[in-house]
Each structure stands twice: as C-alpha cells, then as structure tokens.
C-alpha cells in the first residue's frame, strides 16, 4: 500500500482501497448528489449506501451550471438546489455523515466556482473540519492552476483527479504526480450517465494509466456504469468502480413514486457489491 506523499499515515481513501484488495475484491465508489432530494434523506442515503457495501462515497456538491454532467445528475442538482442544497449544505452533510460513520471515506465532488468564491484555503479548512478525505473538482485541472492541489495538500486532503480517454501520456503523468487517494479514469469522451463504451479499449487505457503513474495510486473507472453487470465487467480490470447517474436515477424513481428512496438504493448498492464479487 502506498501513502500520499508528505502524509504520515495512509488516508481513509487509501485505506479503503487497501482493505478491499486485502479481501480480494474491488472497491465500489458511489456518487450521490448532496441534498437530493433533501438534506435529511440525503444523509440517510449516504449512510445506507456505506452500510450496503459502498467503500468510498462521492458527495456531489450541487451547482447551478453542471456542464460536465448528463441529464440524471443535472436533474439531481436541480432538486438539491431547490431543497436549499449547495456548498454550505454539502459541508454540513459531510459533517453529519462523518459523525455517524467515522470510517467511510468521503470525496467532495463538484465544480470550481463554489470553491473559488469561498477561497481555496477557507474551503479546504472547512472540508477538513467537516471530515472530508478528498476533493474532486471537475473543472479545475491541477496542471492548469496548482492553487487547489497545493491548498488541499496543506490540509491533508487528497486531490482526486479525472483522467480522460483524450489525456495525453504527458498529462497523465503530470496529473498523477499531484493526485491522492485514487485516479478517476473517465471511461468515455462525454458527460456523466452516457452509454458505456467498448471495454477492451478502457481496459487497455487503465493499464496504460497505471504504467504512466508508476502504480502509485489505484485506478477507479466511472461514467456509464449503470448495472451490476457493467460493474462486474469493469471490476475485471480496474481497482475500483464508480457508479453515479444510475444510483441517482434509483433515487429519482423512488421519490417520483412517492416512496422512501433508502431501501431502493440499499438494494441497488447490494446488487452492485454482489456482482463485483
């Protein structure tokens, strides 16, 4: 197991990947939009997902202009914003989840403007204080502007980066050098919730990303993984599997039918977990 540089102890995220590996299984990373459909249900959903077998939680920070997200997560963000969600509430949510579950790694997943407007230093301090372990900022490439990566490192938070099918070898190396926790490989050139592409290519790219990053961090694959069968297929070659839009749709359907979404999400996560072996 590898530590994030400059960190005396492995992070919760590194710990989760190491534990899964020791148990001979792959890591399940689950994305949910914070405050979808409301603060309290969202808190119960996050805790239930961890209980049902998610190894890492990505807590989506709602934003008004999610230009990298597909229809499912756009709709989730609209619902969350209507319920008063946003960065401030996402940090509160993280704090309540941490209080109830001291073990589960939490990555705050969002866009640059809410971080920028707060100020990176204030944001990092608040995220750390709320019990977050890492940050994934979709539209803040770490090589373009090192401020976020540097500030997160000062607060012992992992910067989880996206790596895309279009990323050049030079970019993969530069991004991996400042990353912590895991590398998030985007399976397709597109938005969240798109159709999963041919996995032979994805598998070859994951191998290449491991080589280019010197195997320092585990590689999780996301975008387009919708079913337990998809998760099983991707678990065949990646260290971790990220499921987002499909989980958000499970919640959307239950809420639309007037049901509590928690049992439906629990069942979905258990199915993913079981399929991944």
């Amino acid at each position: 197991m590898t530590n994030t540089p400059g960190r005396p102890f492995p992070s919760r995220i590194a710990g989760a990947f190491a534990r899964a590996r020791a148990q001979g299984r792959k890591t399940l990373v689950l994305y949910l939009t914070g405050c979808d459909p409301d603060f309290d249900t969202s808190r119960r959903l996050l805790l239930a997902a961890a209980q049902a077998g998610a190894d890492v939680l990505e807590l989506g920070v709602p934003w008004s202009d999610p230009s990298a997200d597909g229809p499912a997560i756009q709709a989730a963000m609209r619902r969350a914003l209507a319920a008063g969600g946003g960065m401030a509430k996402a940090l509160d949510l993280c704090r309540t989840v941490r209080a109830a579950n001291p073990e589960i790694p939490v990555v705050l997943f969002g866009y640059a403007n809410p971080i920028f407007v707060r100020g990176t230093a204030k944001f990092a301090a608040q995220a750390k204080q709320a019990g977050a372990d890492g940050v994934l900022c979709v539209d803040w490439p770490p090589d373009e502007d090192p401020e976020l990566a540097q500030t997160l490192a000062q607060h012992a938070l992992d910067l989880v980066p996206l790596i895309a099918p279009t990323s050049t070898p030079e970019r993969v190396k530069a991004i991996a050098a400042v990353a912590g926790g895991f590398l998030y490989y985007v399976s397709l050139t597109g938005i969240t919730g798109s159709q999963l592409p041919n996995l032979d290519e994805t598998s070859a790219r994951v191998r290449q990303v491991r080589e280019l990053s010197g195997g320092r961090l585990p590689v999780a694959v996301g975008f387009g993984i919708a079913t337990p069968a998809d998760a099983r297929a991707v678990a065949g070659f990646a260290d971790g599997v990220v499921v987002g839009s499909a989980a958000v749709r499970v919640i959307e359907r239950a809420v639309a039918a007037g049901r509590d979404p928690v049992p439906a999400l629990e069942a979905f996560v258990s199915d993913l977990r079981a399929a991944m072996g």
Partner: protein
Amino acid sequence: MSIVPQSHGRFGPYGGRYVSETLMPALEELADAWEHFSFDPTFRAELDRLLREYVGRPTPLTEAARLAEHVAKTQGRRLRVFLKREDLCHTGSHKLNNCVGQILLAQRLGKQRIIAETGAGQHGVATATVAALFGLPCEIYMGAVDVERQSLNVFRMHLLGAKVHPVKDGTATLKDAMNEAMRDWVTNVGTTHYVLGTVAGPHPYPTMVGELQSVIGREARAQIQAATGRLPDACLACVGGGSNAMGLFRGFIDDPGVRLYGVEAAGEGIDTKHHAATLGKGRPGVLHGARSYVLCDDDGQIDEAHSISAGLDYPGVGPEHSYLRDSGRAQYLSATDQEALAACRLLARCEGIIPALESAHAVAGLPRVAEQLSDGASVIINISGRGDKDMGTIAKHFGAEVSS
C-alpha cells in the same frame, strides 16, 4: 507590447482553462493551431479575402452629426460622434468576423462538424452561415427563452441548414446554451469544432476571438485618423461576453489618451435582481472555463441575469474585460432596458439607423461619456449589429406607436 499582460491565456489573474480533463487536450491543440495559423501568410490571406469579399469589410465609420447635435442641445457639449457600422456586415452583426476565422481554423484541424451557442441568435446565424459556405453540418444550442424572443433568427438558422436545439435547462438563456454546447463538445471532441461566439470561455477562445474581432479596431483607427486627423478621445461599446467591445478596444488599448468605455445591461436597474451588469455588480469566479467576473451568490451558485437584449443576458464576461476593469484601463457603465429602448429610437430618428438592442446600450452610454469629455472631443460608438431581429421585442414595448 500591449499593456495587458498575457501569458498562457491569462490576463493578469483572469482567463485560463477551467474545463473537464476530456477537453484539455483539444484546447491545447486549438491554442497551438491558432498560434501557428494566425501568423501563417496563406491563412491570413484567405481570412482577409473572406472578410473583404464575403463579410463586406471594411465596414464604414459614419459620422453621426444629428446625434452629436442632440448631445449639444441636451448637454451643452459639442462632440464629434462616429458610428462603427458592424451592422452592415453580412448577417447583420460583428459576429461573422469571428466565425470566418474559426471555420478556417476548423478546416485546417480536419473537423467535420460545427457547433455553437447563441444568445440573441446573431452568433448562431453567423455560424450557420459559414457552415453553409464551407458545406459543414452545423448544430446550434440556444436557450428556450431566447428561441422564443428571437424567433426570426431561429428561422434564419433553419433556412441556412443548421439544426437548432432549444435548451430548457436552468434559466434557458445564453449561459445554459453554453453549458449544453460544452456537453456536446466533450462528447464529440474528436470530430467537432466548437465556434464559441465571444471573448469568454477557456483559453484560447478569449485571445483568438479578440484577435479575430480586432479588425473592428484596426479599421476604426485608420478611419477616424482619416476623418479627423487624430485618434478619438473615447470609444464606446456594449458588453455582454464582450467581443465587439474587445474588437474595438484592441485598436486603441495602447493609446492612453483614448478612453475606453464598456456598457453593460442594467436590465431593470443594477440595484434590482434583474440585470446583467457582471463587471459592475459581480465578483471574480469561474464560469464556462475561465476565471473572470461572474454574477453569483455567496455559495457560488450562478445568478440569473436579465436584459431586454438576449445578447447581453449573460452572468459572465470575458476575462480580458475583467482585467481592464481592475486595472482601470477601461471603465464599465450600464444602461437599463428603458434607456436602451430610448437610445434605439433616438438613433433611428436622428440617423436613420436602427441598432440592435445590444448596440443600443452603447448609444445609451453616450450622455455619461459626454459628461467626461470636453468640447471638440470625438467619440466612436460601436454599432455591433442591426435591429431587425429585435422588432418583435421593440414593438411589444412601444406598442401601438410602432404598429400605427
């Protein structure tokens, strides 16, 4: 050497590339291509030919004597007022200057499909026009609200063979159209060129669009020197994303004696929630791929902008304008919906020129600029587009007066 510090697409602290990783390599490729071709003599020659023979450049600089007389009567200030006539470009606005340049670049990059966002529809029409000229399939993203208020431009785009996607997300205006265009581009980045229409967005767009629009300022500089024997005292242009303003400013930015004024849309008033005065009332943030001023709340959620003119109805602004604002090189005023409507009528009746509602904001800024000038001063106002597209909106506001 310009007074604006530029390096890697940064204008001081503003600009940059804040996009998802998938787009970074495409933006690097585009920046390299632009750097190469913008100095390539064959490319320049082809661009100049298109600007001359297709766009209809140079556009005239028209002296507006009766408008100047109006200022003299109402404010006691004797100015010489000149209008840079981008309304006389093919398709009716300055937008085509940028589109011809970008389509030539797309062609050299081997892209087979063109997409664009549009607010008022002027940029959508200009993009659909060059796509038709070059025989490339074209898809335009336009907010559903704007599709409604600019239906004439939607029909023009259809006639030109483009597909128009109404965007119902968010506020269903320009910013949402940009989000949807970015989603398309991230999905089809290998085959598609995104013709961004203003000096906003990630590097290299602000630099590239600014350079392509700088033809406005170069021409205006030569024309006013021919007309008055000297440089103007002030330049005035409307600012939404800011491309027509940047195009004019580029001609004079290194001449400290030329005052530069941008006019933002104050909508129902900058102290209401219904305006688009990003530089006047916003704060530094990150939107659509660049650091720049944005209208947003303390949580970082982007505010809904409002303006009677769809082309100015945008809660962001180009990063170079943010730099010029902070440095004080340019000053940014604002004009309300009502002031823009009045200015539109004033220019129509004084000069026989019906400006686009966007450009009418620039005209509406003239009284405040006049206050800061002395007798004998000369001013260039950029008439970025013609008003035909706005007849429906204007008729609604002036009601019976227009229909009678």
